[in-house]
């Protein structure tokens, strides 16, 4: 991230942040801040709401309207804020555990309502903060403190899940692909409806060490080598796709009413307009 943006958006005295050396959270937060700056939004018109987890610490470092809330409950709290202040650009930062395990139900219903929130999922495939338990986004065949003999559960594709539930903007990038991640977050914020951007990122400490890929740069190199741009992905055979994942804008639709707009009609009806 550019130095001027640190000066402009970070809370003074809060750096260095407390994330581990090489943790991808700092890079993903940098992409969020850069996206907001590119959109030329006033700081006061932006809210960053997070849940609980290492990644959710991100809201504490930046000078927007912020709240580091309750594990799994970032989306409900962001929903309340958006209902009260539909003019606010509400961005949500949530870990893979935060938004797909304890918060999974909130995710599908926020998506179903198509409320204008921009959810950035910091997907490091693990519960980082609590010491490396597997999450619904941990792929099978990896070690976790709760899976000493390797994980056997299939993982969610969180973007397919959200799209099926009603999300009108789904996209994926990684902490290696920073310009792509930044531009997708930018588009997600501009999109009027529920946007979800999965940021594939590394937890060198609690995923890497157990799985013998603790060097942060190697985790990023893995992202470089396994993320495939959607245009290319669409032409690949199932064999070629094995172990890889698509990145880029994966789905977008603009034909669904956004929730706060629909709610405006309720207010009008309640105030006596013809039903």
């Amino acid at each position, binding site marked *: *991230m550019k130095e001027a943006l640190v000066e402009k958006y970070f809370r003074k005295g809060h*750096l*260095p942040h407390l994330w581990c*050396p090489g943790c991808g959270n700092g*890079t993903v937060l*940098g992409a969020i801040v850069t996206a907001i700056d590119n959109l030329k939004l006033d700081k006061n018109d932006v809210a960053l709401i997070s849940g609980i987890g290492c990644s959710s610490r991100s809201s504490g470092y930046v000078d927007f309207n912020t709240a580091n809330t309750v594990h799994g409950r970032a989306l409900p709290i962001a929903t309340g804020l958006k209902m009260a202040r539909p003019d606010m650009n509400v961005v949500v930062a949530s870990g893979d555990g935060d938004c797909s395990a304890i918060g999974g139900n909130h995710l599908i219903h926020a998506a179903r309502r198509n409320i204008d929130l921009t959810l950035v999922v910091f997907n490091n495939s693990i519960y980082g903060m609590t010491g490396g338990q597997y999450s619904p986004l941990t792929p099978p065949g990896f070690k976790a403190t709760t899976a000493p003999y390797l994980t056997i559960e299939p993982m969610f594709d969180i973007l397919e899940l959200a799209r099926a539930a009603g999300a009108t903007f789904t996209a994926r990038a990684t902490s*290696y692909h920073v*310009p792509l991640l930044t531009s997708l977050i930018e588009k997600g914020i501009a999109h009027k409806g529920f946007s979800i951007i999965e940021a594939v990122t590394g937890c060198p400490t609690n995923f890497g060490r157990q799985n013998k890929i603790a060097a*942060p740069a190697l985790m990023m190199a893995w992202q470089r080598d396994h993320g495939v741009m959607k245009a290319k992905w669409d032409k690949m055979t199932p064999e070629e796709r094995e172990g890889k994942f698509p990145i880029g804008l994966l789905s977008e639709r603009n034909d669904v009413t956004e929730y706060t707009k629909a709610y405006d009609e309720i207010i009008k009806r309640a105030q006596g307009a013809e039903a």
Partner: protein
Amino acid sequence: MALKFVTSRCKGCGICAYFCPKKVLTVTELNKAAIAEGKENDCISCGQCEMRCPDYAIFVEREAK
């Protein structure tokens, strides 16, 4: 052009050095990013280090034109 290191924030993760296309950077014994010996004039200001550093500890200072 010049590289600026904010040493107090650098955690020595090595991400900047690993992806530098010109192998300009190294991590010193003190666990801080620095310019490698003999590479003082090799930086091409591509910005990859600045873009990925998780700790906002390395910046490419571009001359105002």
